């Protein structure tokens, strides 16, 4: 596939690995923010191949993993209602709520459907006028324009049986929260290439300057990630801390302006709780008052609730990058993809699932070797 396959070229990748090894005079600690980047790193064994030069810490860039327990529980409630068809991206279906998950709600008779695009959910609403269709609007800034368009279009076309359960989060506040944390070891970042495709990179300039960390906007294929790592290491060796763009084929400094504009029109910044991290002010998106009619929490009267995570689940430490999944006592023993304690073990982007499904068997716990 053009503009995809070339970025998996083994020769080019090996060339970059050599460059990184030659350039690094010490072992630097980098964080890739996005779950898709974690996926590639573990799937291709890149961190194994970069062992001496770079330590990769996996960041909280998995919107599925950071969706707070309360929002999952609200989703489960809505999905259980007989008058509701609950639609969602596939990622969310196995994420455990307090008691069960969307797949089990489906087994109980709830109408749960996977869709590829929020516009598919809107279409479903138009085709089923006698049911309520709720869409689980989860994601980072990359997905916000798509979800915004679905809501905007629903209002424009007067599709009254459509609503969204919103759980959007934004990246920069989370990066700042990590950098402010006393146990932070991260010296440089690979910023999320598709988030920056929408948003551009200007928001990261003050962060790079204040905390003196290089931030390289990076794509998702092995060559992209290796080039991003190379640029970050080069900056660290040269004592620079700037925002650089590796993902030039998709990212421009101003981002995709019409997308940002519609997001601004439909959503507003709100305080948001991140599962495992806690509340980060102005780190989430919620619907503006003019679109309140399409807010499922208002339409179905879901009040504010607080939830406790199971104590064995160390998702928070994993998401903050202070604990590697294999170091968690529950990993592979009481917490596995079939019976996960927390979202990072379920979501295909979660660090724990990535390690479990793709990880090196010789690092796995003995008990995790059999099922």
């Amino acid at each position, binding site marked *: 596939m053009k503009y995809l396959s070339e970025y998996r070229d083994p020769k080019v990748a090996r060339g970059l690995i050599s460059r990184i090894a030659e350039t690094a005079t010490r072992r630097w600690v980098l964080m890739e923010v996005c779950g898709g980047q974690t996926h590639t790193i573990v799937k291709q064994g890149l961190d194994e191949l970069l062992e001496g030069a770079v330590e990769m810490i996996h960041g909280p860039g998995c919107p599925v993993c950071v969706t707070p327990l309360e929002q999952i529980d609200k989703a489960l409630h809505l999905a259980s209602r007989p008058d509701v068809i609950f639609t969602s991206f596939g990622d969310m279906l*196995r994420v455990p709520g307090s008691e069960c998950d969307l797949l089990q709600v489906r087994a109980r008779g709830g109408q749960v459907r*996977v869709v*590829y695009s929020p516009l598919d959910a809107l279409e479903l609403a138009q085709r089923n006028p006698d049911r309520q269709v709720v869409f689980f609007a989860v994601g980072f800034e990359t997905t916000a324009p798509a979800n915004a368009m679905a809501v905007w279009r629903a209002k424009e076309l007067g599709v009254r049986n459509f609503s969204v359960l919103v759980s959007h989060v934004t990246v920069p506040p989370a990066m700042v929260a990590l950098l402010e944390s006393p146990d932070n070891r991260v010296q440089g970042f690979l910023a999320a290439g598709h988030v920056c495709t929408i948003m551009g990179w200007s928001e990261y300039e003050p962060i790079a300057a204040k905390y003196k960390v290089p931030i390289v906007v990076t794509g998702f294929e092995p060559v992209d990630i290796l080039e991003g790592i190379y640029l970050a290491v080069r900056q660290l060796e040269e004592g620079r801390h700037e925002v650089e763009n590796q993902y030039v084929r998709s990212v421009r400094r101003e981002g995709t302006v019409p997308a940002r504009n519609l997001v601004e029109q439909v959503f507003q910044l709100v305080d948001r709780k991140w599962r495992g991290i806690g509340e980060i002010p102005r780190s989430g998106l919620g619907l503006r008052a003019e679109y309140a009619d399409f807010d499922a929490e208002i339409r179905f009267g879901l009040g504010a609730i607080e939830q406790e995570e199971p104590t064995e689940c160390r998702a928070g430490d994993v998401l903050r990058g202070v604990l590697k999944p294999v170091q968690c006592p529950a990993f592979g023993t009481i917490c596995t993809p079939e019976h996960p304690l927390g979202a990072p073990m379920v979501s295909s982007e979660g660090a724990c699932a990535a390690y479990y499904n793709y990880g090196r068997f010789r690092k796995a716990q003995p008990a995790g070797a059999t099922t």
Partner: protein
Amino acid sequence: MTSVKLAAGLVCPVPANAPDRVQLGHGSGGKLSAALLQERFLPGFGNPVLAALGDAAVMDVAGVELAISTDSFVVSPLEFPGGDIGSLSVHGTVNDLAMMGARPVGLSAGYILEEGLPFERLDRIIASMAAAARAVPVPIVTGDTKVVERGKADGLYINTTGLGVRLPGAAPAPDRAQAGDAILVSGPIGRHGMAIMAAREGMAFESSIESDSAALWPLVQPLLEQFGAEVHALRDPTRGGVASALNEIAAASEVGMVLEEGAIPIPGPVAAGCEMLGLDPLYVANEGVFLALLPRRLAVRALALLRSHPLGAGAAIIGRVVTTHPKFVILETGLGGTRIVDTLPGDQLPRIC
């Protein structure tokens, strides 16, 4: 676990770790399916023939090795690019017999029809099934029909049971893989699952992908006639894909396996569809390819034999069986890294992340 108190008072009383009822994932060929078999069915029916868990059961009856296999077909939509539930129900059971080295001698067909199914559609499916059976050839010698109320059975469910006679000298079985074996696949993977996915509401996309649904006995027979008992294991990677099938053999034979990413044949549109939906082709269902494990020194000749047949034109050697990491299937990537190819808990889900 704390109870959830929401405005409308729903409480989900069962903890996530112990589902109390059947889920869709139990039919996906992954870990949940295996658990269902091990924890619920086997304890009830336990006997040595069943416990072998081959694609078909082999029994010595008056000195003749007979194979029996049964399969139920619940695919939706009933008709899809490259096939339909009728031809699929013939191919699926004939292939299960073939995987145990048995020539099919007769099929039974049980139908569960939904009230309201148009005859026009039923007739097309019957015609397709008859054509598929004649092509093998295997007669459909007995059957049964039931009708259920509107709203059940998705239009039509079919069960086929096949009886076969094992080729003398052939003994492929999931527990016979050995270190030093090569792993061959008879053709490109991922076609059936993606053809079905392309037709699914909410996921639909346009493609030229057609199901690979086909009877494999015409390709398996010459392989067994030439190599006999040296063909250690055969498996058709249906639900759960190549990953699940190889993991089952690795577990039964207590061996490790290493696959080479670059050697696995995946048609361009299948790869593209998987990229778009975030799916891994190794877990996508196939209905017209099989995996063969045989000694490495025979691999090149076996490959040539497969490739000389139209059904095996895309055959390839994709990996090897090893003594290290028993029961683990490892993939070597083009970059020189490695990763584990494990079975999934349930169905593979499309993702956005």
